[in-house]
């Protein structure tokens, strides 16, 4: 991340300057040269501006910038390293620009920049904003995410670095710390085939420049002033006044409408036509462009009535947006559709952004062997930086950074804790197994939830840990032994074979195999390898499993009769739909409160499907709202062991382990 940027050599000076300069090119020198370039730019710009002045007013860019900044700040933090290469590239830019107009042409992107001139300008503008914002965000991100582990960044790093490389080549519209971008941008723009956009973008850029980095702009202006003659003075001052007035009006408008109005680009955003789309599909795109486009479309969709292009339907906007997002984030279309259906557009971005970043490492204290207090103390003594996760758990700790590998401390080896995601605590907390109960964990590997159950039960009763995958069972058994859970019996069945194998459990935990859309941050391959057939298969499996789980529970158990169904996926197909199916197929169950007081309630209706109203008792968790993996938890209570399928038929689900107590007990439901 930062490492790369630091070690990076400064981009060599352009050919012309290299000859002029002898000796080492230090940063100071670079800066000086940059500054000179800025000055030259400003002069040229001033000249151009005088021409443009007559034509139109300069719309202020402040509201737009503010809006963008606001939007960006709510989204999860992007990689900070995105900025640094760009900084380098900035330098590169500045060197390039004073040389000659030709070089500016060389700045033109290798890829389809010329093919989409319209977009590029505004993209440039958007990009500049985004760069601005990303810079600022990156700074704040530095503060907050100081402790993300390296590995998680590795892959993202590659991606974004590549992104950055591409972006850097394109950057001629960077408004950077140097703040001279406005000049260069406008320069570039004017060189290109003029379009309606150019003026605006150009002004927008300059406005950007003025808005964000006033000091540099004033410098630039002062420089300009020096260069400019007295004759221009008057015009300049008029221009400034006009600008200010415009800003004031825009601000008023903004207050009224409550929405950021960007006059400059309202009508100017256009969806790419079909040919453009086709072309884009083949050739690799500029990611920053894409991002800008995404931002734009979101903005348009946010205020669709006013900002839309009359010719295009909402669907077209949406589809373009989806395409862009697939490209930008790396998802396949099917999954993108599914996920986009879940969120509002703005939130979707946050969700996707959150999936790019890893969640912090969390551990769970094994209360069979240690107390959280003592464990925290001994880990701190080893140089680990940690904190309790939150008020909702008494056994969880987040690890911010560590001098020793967390998975290899003596305390780990002694079984005092287990590395477990915070979201995995939730189903067990909801299940709340009591002492001396019989609990079934249908899909137990690698054993975090099983051992948590055993710890809550204080090694009494019995926990049956089942997993269909023999290979993963090894890890399960290892964890069970390491943590000292002596009441666990591990078996290897397909979950659907319960309750034939054994039934009459007090509680059942089903952490169903799922598509994993909630843990994309851990496993990015989910983005691409899930297709509709996967979903069909998975949902069918989940439905069968949940029925088996329900049938394995003994409703007449004194303390229990609960089933918890959870998945690490956020799609409605696997969550609410399955729960609803269970409610339909087994009238002897009902949903109860999970006992988790945070998390969003599940959907009671979705895209035309309506679910049972009690679905509101289920809970959904998202990475961008709760800082844990995407998760879904539902808790059922079984009311009676008999299922009335129809009025005549009374079906008693078979369970070889059904206790005699069950049979002897009278009909009717307790609880």
């Amino acid at each position: 991340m930062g490492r790369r940027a630091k070690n990076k050599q400064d981009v060599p000076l352009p050919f012309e300057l290299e000859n002029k300069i002898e000796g080492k090119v230090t940063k100071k020198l670079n800066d000086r040269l940059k500054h000179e370039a800025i000055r030259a730019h400003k002069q040229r710009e001033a000249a151009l501006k005088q021409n443009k002045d007559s034509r139109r007013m300069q719309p202020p860019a402040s509201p737009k910038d503010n809006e963008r900044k606001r939007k960006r700040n709510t989204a999860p933090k992007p990689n900070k390293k995105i900025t640094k290469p760009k900084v380098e590239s900035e330098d590169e830019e500045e060197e390039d620009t004073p040389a000659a107009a030709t070089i500016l042409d060389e700045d033109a992107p290798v890829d389809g920049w010329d093919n989409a001139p319209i977009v590029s300008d505004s993209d440039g503008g958007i990009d500049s904003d985004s760069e601005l914002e990303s810079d600022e965000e990156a700074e704040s991100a530095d503060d907050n995410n100081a402790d993300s582990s390296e590995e998680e960044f590795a892959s993202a790093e590659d991606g974004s670095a590549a992104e950055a490389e591409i972006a850097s080549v394109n950057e001629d519209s960077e408004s950077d710390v140097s703040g001279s971008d406005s000049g260069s941008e406008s320069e570039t723009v004017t060189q290109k085939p003029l379009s309606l956009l150019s003026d605006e973008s150009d002004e927008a850029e300059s406005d950007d420049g003025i808005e964000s980095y006033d000091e540099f702009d004033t410098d630039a202006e002062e420089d300009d002033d020096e260069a400019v003659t007295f004759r221009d003075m008057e015009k300049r001052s008029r221009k400034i006044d006009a600008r200010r007035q415009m800003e004031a009006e825009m601000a008023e408008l903004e207050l009224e409408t409550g929405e950021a109005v960007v006059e400059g680009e309202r009508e100017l955003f256009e969806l790419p036509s079909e040919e453009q789309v086709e072309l884009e599909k083949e050739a690799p795109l500029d990611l920053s462009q894409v991002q800008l486009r995404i931002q734009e479309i979101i903005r348009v969709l946010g205020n669709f009535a006013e900002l839309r292009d009359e010719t295009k339907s909402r669907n077209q906007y949406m589809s373009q947006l989806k395409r862009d997002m697939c490209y930008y984030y790396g998802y396949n279309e099917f999954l993108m559709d599914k996920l986009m259906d879940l969120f509002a557009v703005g939130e979707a971005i946050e969700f996707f952004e959150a999936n790019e970043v890893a969640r912090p490492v969390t551990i769970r204290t094994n209360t069979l062997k240690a107390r959280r207090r003592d464990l925290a103390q001994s880990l701190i003594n080893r140089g680990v930086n940690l904190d309790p996760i939150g008020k909702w758990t008494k056994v969880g700790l987040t690890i911010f950074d560590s001098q020793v590998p967390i998975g290899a401390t003596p305390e780990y080896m002694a079984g005092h804790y287990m590395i477990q995601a915070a979201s995995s605590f939730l189903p067990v907390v909801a299940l709340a197994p009591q002492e001396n109960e019989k609990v079934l964990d249908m899909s137990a590997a690698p054993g975090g939830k099983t051992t948590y159950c055993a710890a809550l039960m204080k090694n009494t009763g019995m926990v049956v840990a089942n997993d269909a995958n023999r290979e993963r069972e090894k890890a399960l058994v290892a964890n069970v032994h390491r943590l000292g859970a002596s009441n666990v019996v591990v078996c290897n069945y397909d979950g659907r074979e319960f309750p034939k194998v054994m039934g009459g459990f007090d509680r059942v935990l089903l952490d169903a195999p799922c598509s994993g859309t909630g843990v994309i941050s851990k496993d990015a391959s989910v983005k691409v390898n899930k297709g509709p057939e996967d979903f069909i298969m998975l949902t069918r499996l989940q439905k069968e499993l949940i029925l088996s789980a329900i049938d394995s529970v003994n409703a007449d158990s004194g303390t229990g009769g609960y089933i918890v169904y959870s998945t690490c996926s956020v799609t409605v197909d696997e969550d609410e739909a399955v729960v609803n199916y269970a409610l339909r197929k087994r009238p002897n169950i009902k949903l109860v409160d999970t006992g988790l007081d945070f998390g969003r309630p599940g959907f009671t209706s979705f895209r035309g499907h309506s679910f049972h109203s009690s679905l509101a008792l289920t809970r959904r968790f998202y990475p961008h709202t709760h800082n844990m993996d995407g998760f879904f938890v539902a808790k059922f209570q079984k009311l009676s062991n008999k299922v009335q399928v129809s009025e005549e038929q009374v079906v008693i689900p078979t369970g070889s382990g059904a206790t005699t107590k069950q049979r002897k007990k009278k009909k009717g439901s307790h609880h």
Partner: protein
Amino acid sequence: MNYEQNLRRFEQTEKKPKLTNRLPIKTADGRLALPENSDEENDDISDSAHTDGESSVGGEQSAEEQHSTLEVDSDGDEDQEVSTRPSYTETKLEEQDDYVIEPDRSRMTRKQYIIAQQNRLAVIADAIMQDPDNGVKYLKTLHNISSDVDPRVKRLGLLTQLAVFCDILPEYRIRELTEKEQQAKVTKDVRQQRMHEEQLVHSYSNYLKQLFTASKQALKVFANPSADIETGIVAARALGNLINVRPLFNFRKDILSALVDIYTARLAVLRLFRDDVSGELSQNAVMLAAKRIKRLSYRVDPSALRPWLHLRLREELRENPEDRKRKDEEQRQREQPKRALHMSKKQAKMRKVQQDVDKSLVEAEAEVSREEREKWYGETLKQVFITYFRILKQKDNIGGLLPAVLEGLAKYAHLISVEFFVDLFQLLKKIMRGQHGVGIGAEESEHGEDLVSSRVGLRTALLCILSALHILTGQGEALNLDIKDFFYQLYALLPPLAARPQIEATQATWEETVRSESDLLFECLQLMFLGRTKVSSITRVAAFCKRIAECALCWPPKTAVRAIEFMHRLLIKYPALDRLLSSEEQAGCGLYLRDLDDPDMCNPFATCLFELHWLQIHYHAGVQAATARLLNFAKTEQKKHRL
């Protein structure tokens, strides 16, 4: 008889009307008074005896009062009668010479006779005391009186002699005159003094012989039932007093041996030990006692060993800081090279004079030097321990002596040399478990797994543990002795102690107050857990803490308060125990094995100290207050932790 109506009268104030045949007489005042007469025939002599007796009542009184504390109670009545005699007149000494004459026994009743003798004794005693130099001749008379047949008279005589001797004996030892000195020409005064001394010594020895015979006879009470025990007791007490009052006088060895033979004069011996500076006497006493005990095959009363607890061994053999300072100084002086300080002649002379003066000062102060003390006390210690060990090794009939021995061990254990420790430990362990007794062979001791055996008393077990701990805290730290067994034993003792209502009972005897079991228990706990070294296993501490809390519910208030305070101190010293105070964060699995007598394995962290809540509503305010303090402390501690 109407019980209520009849007035009851004190015996004393009852004035029997005295029938008299005589006519009333006119006293010197002019008052008419009935002549008092005794109920005896011979009025004259008795009268005269009386009137004279009155005169010396004062002297007698004082003599009597001197040994009022020692008198056997049977004497009391008559003494009182005599002493309540209303008046006495002064008489001169010369008149009393008449009463050196023996009253005629045959012509008096016993009572009269006793009184007569009393008078005589009183007179003589007075005479002697007033003029010791001349009065020594009267000692013989006393002696004769004391050899009277009548036991009471004998006792009185002995007591009088005691009083007299106590007063007239000098503090120093009168040694035999050598031949040379006898022949040397001396002044009259000196010669007279020598004579006096000789006589004194002579009579003293006679007296002592009397005492010895009396006491020895008393000892033979088993063989000879008619022997005079009381006289013997009186004689013993007299001996004791003598040794206390004049420890340095002659014959003390003999006295000591006699005393030791009797060994009933505990108080005397105690005082002796306490006041003994040089240690020589203690050593003598102890050695004699040891021999005697051995002779008797240890069938002695435990109180025989009690005095040893008062030996000044602890203080004496411990290095006094002043002594050490002195030693260091001396060493330094020796090591220092003799710097030739140039002193003028005058100064040198002065210094020499000064040194001489110092030396004589030291002599004058008669300070017993450290070495001498060490020597004597070392000997004493050796004797003491030999006895203890012999007693301990006795397998039969040690029951009574054991507590005394153990207490002694507990007190002096740190003075034993290190080699004995291991053996001693083994022995203590065996005793503790009750495996050390009659008829316990090897097989039984294997099966006797029960830690708390009914054969051994709680007190004994506690004392064993205490001795072991004292040994350890002294020098035993050098050895890595594992006192795990003692921990287990104490842990196992806690429940029976909880059920023991007399836990606070202290036996207050006239010599000392024997420590109560409560005291012993807390001393053990103190040494075990609150000593300098931290106990290795926190599980053990927790187990003890839990059990003590349980027991505190059953104990009487004082012990309960001590228990709570002990727990408070434990919590301060071992902060890891706060797991016991929180019922939520329970790490670990399994149950708390309440009945298991093994502190390491009972899994105490699976439980918490819920007894504290019951103690908060205890009927005793002190217990409530102590518990409140403890809980407050716990709360503040918990607030410190944020996790």
